[in-house]
């Protein structure tokens, strides 16, 4: 076994043996699922909100009919207003009567609480609605009342124009049929889920690439700092060459990251087979292969990871504590985060000139080009960015190797002058 592989194996096993690795392996997909499904579960688990309508505008029962349709989706239930509120003869009296109910001091006859009350005034053609709600942060009920009131007003005004309500209802029931076509569709015409799959896959891969890069470089940085502070680096340097040490460490952590990706990918595939509509899995696999996404992803992953990993290893060689590293790593992490801001845009508008230019900047290339890959950018753009990435990665690795050698044996804190002198004098 060569030195490089021994170093890689040690790096891989040292993290694989830690409980933290296994915890994060399990917890991370859990957090992902929670962030995706959590809000839905929270909404479903929330109690049904009770809403009452007090009508001083003769808008009922039409408003409640429309509101009932909306309410089904938003887990609302229309209830009759408490008798004391229903008996009020003016909106002001109704407002005073409903106050203790909405504030929670009084309950409905069945023991339930009243979450909101809409007081309708004006006329059906010119409705005004005051919505009193228990939850000041929830604008959903007011929105639904606005929608329903608008529906009532529209109907009244159309009737005033002499239209038959039955015909209005028939016209409202009309729904257009819209089909989406694209010459890029697999069928050559109509766009299907399979055609959209590359976009989802590209976005997923770009995110995966970013997560793996950020996690990987973090592990590498800590590993080198630990070796530097434990005085292991000098022994390593006397036992193996700088390329072997750098290569071994980067490869070991890449294997670790690949393990994580494989586990997450496997879990995702299982979820896809188990829960997604039939045909989704094969469509995803087809998207990954037929658009060459997986190959582009691999190429950008290797080059991007190599570039960032080399930089972080070199930085780590100058630091004995994570605190020392923080000041150096901050700007790098900022640079790593920038492409994420544009990732969604890179999926929606891959032809945006700004994104096209940004994709040529090597630190952004792996993420933005992976995200844009689904739109099928010109071959010369892919080839050009890959060549530029390869040249940049080679230059970064070369500089980092020299910096690593200089930093590994230095006893002083990092400063730019020492760093540059180290690069110049590290020599072999």
């Amino acid at each position: 076994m060569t030195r490089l592989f021994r170093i890689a194996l040690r790096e891989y096993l040292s993290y694989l043996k830690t409980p933290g690795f296994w915890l994060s392996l399990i917890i991370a997909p859990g957090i992902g699922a929670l962030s995706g499904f959590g809000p839905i579960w929270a909404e479903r688990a929330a109690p049904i909100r009770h809403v009452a309508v007090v009508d001083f505008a003769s808008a009922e029962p039409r408003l409640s009919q429309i509101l009932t349709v909306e309410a089904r989706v938003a887990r609302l239930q229309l209830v009759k207003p408490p008798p004391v509120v229903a008996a009020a003869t003016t909106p002001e009296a109704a407002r005073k009567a409903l106050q203790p109910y909405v504030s929670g001091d009084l309950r409905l006859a069945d023991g339930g609480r009243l979450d909101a009350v809409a007081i309708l005034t004006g006329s059906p053609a010119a409705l005004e609605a005051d919505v009193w709600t228990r939850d000041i942060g929830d604008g959903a009920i007011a929105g639904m009342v606005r929608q329903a009131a608008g529906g009532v007003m529209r109907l009244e005004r159309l009737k005033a124009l002499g239209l038959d309500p039955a015909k209005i209802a028939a016209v409202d029931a009309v729904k257009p049929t819209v089909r989406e076509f694209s010459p890029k569709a697999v069928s050559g015409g109509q766009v299907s889920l399979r055609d959209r799959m590359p976009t989802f896959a590209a976005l997923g891969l770009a995110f995966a690439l970013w997560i793996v890069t950020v996690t990987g470089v973090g592990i590498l940085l800590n590993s080198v700092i630990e070796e530097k502070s434990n005085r292991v680096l000098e022994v390593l340097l006397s036992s193996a060459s700088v390329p072997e040490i750098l290569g071994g460490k980067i490869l070991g952590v890449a294997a670790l990251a690949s393990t994580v990706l494989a586990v997450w990918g496997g879990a995702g595939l299982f979820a896809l087979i188990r829960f997604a509509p039939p045909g989704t899995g094969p469509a995803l696999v087809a998207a990954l292969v037929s658009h060459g996404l997986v190959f582009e992803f691999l190429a950008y992953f290797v080059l991007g990871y190599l570039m960032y990993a080399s930089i972080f290893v070199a930085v780590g060689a100058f630091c004995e504590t994570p605190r020392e590293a923080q000041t150096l790593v901050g700007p790098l992490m900022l640079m790593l985060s920038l492409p994420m801001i544009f990732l969604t845009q890179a999926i929606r508008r891959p032809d945006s000139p700004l994104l096209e230019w940004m994709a040529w900047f090597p630190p952004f290339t792996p993420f933005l080009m992976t995200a844009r890959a689904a739109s099928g950018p010109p071959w010369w753009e892919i080839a050009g960015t890959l060549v530029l990435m390869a040249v940049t990665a080679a230059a970064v690795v070369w500089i980092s190797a020299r910096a690593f050698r200089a930093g590994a044996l230095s006893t002083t804190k990092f400063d730019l002058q020492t760093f540059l002198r180290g690069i110049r004098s590290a020599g072999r």
Partner: protein
Amino acid sequence: MDAALSLEGVSKQYGDFRAVDDLSFSVGAGRIFGFLGPNGAGKTTSIRMALGLVEPTAGRITMLGADDARKVRDRIGFLPEERGLYRRMTPVEAVVFFAGLKGVPSAVAKKRGVAMLEAQGLGAAMNRPMKALSKGMAQKVQLITALAHEPDLVILDEPFSGLDPVNQQSLETLIRDLAKRGATVIFSTHVMAHAERLCERVVLLAKGRKAFEGSVDEARSAAPRRLVLEGGASEGELRALPGVADITVDEAGVRTASLKPGAAAYDTLRAAFAQGLELTRFEVKEPSLHDAFIVLTGGA
């Protein structure tokens, strides 16, 4: 005898600071060689250059017949001055890993590691993580990791620092055993007693320059021999004796005469008795390596 290590006109410059200046010496194969000098003399930089860890600004280095130590790194065992191992590794794992980097198959390295650890009294600790070991135990483990691949050349940078007297003694024995099996041992130290007991030849470094190269006896001869004289003779009478270069008086009033180079203590004593000086006790003191160190380094 072939040289295991040879430096010719080697210098190292860091900005305006010259850490090592025109250093030349050679170490014969199979010898125990002392690389001596005060702190900051350039010993560690010279060792790092010899190992190929730092590129010299000028000069030529040959190690085990190779013009670059990295070509023969599998034949070299190195214990750095600042020691440390992976904290979560056990001693056995550490030996297997580092010996593996030197080309020893894992099974062989494990077998050797276990035997060496047991021989050093670390049998009970060999499967405990390094972070649970005492500093002395960890230091022994690191030494074993440097030797488990049975190197032809062993370079130990300040190996005695941090060790208690018992472990210092045991390390001296280990160094002698290495030489007995034919390995060349180079160690740096600023404690002369170890070098005096172990080394056949030494190089003395001061302020980055070579101050001396030769055998321990040759080094000692560079320092003046001294004559301890007690009795009623005055300092002036003693200073006037033939061969006396200087007189020092300690707190107890004991006078010590430093003799001029080449002067014989016998001639000085004979003159003292001939002049009828009152002497109640005399003692000829041969210079130690420590004395030579002070003289040769100019007290650096």
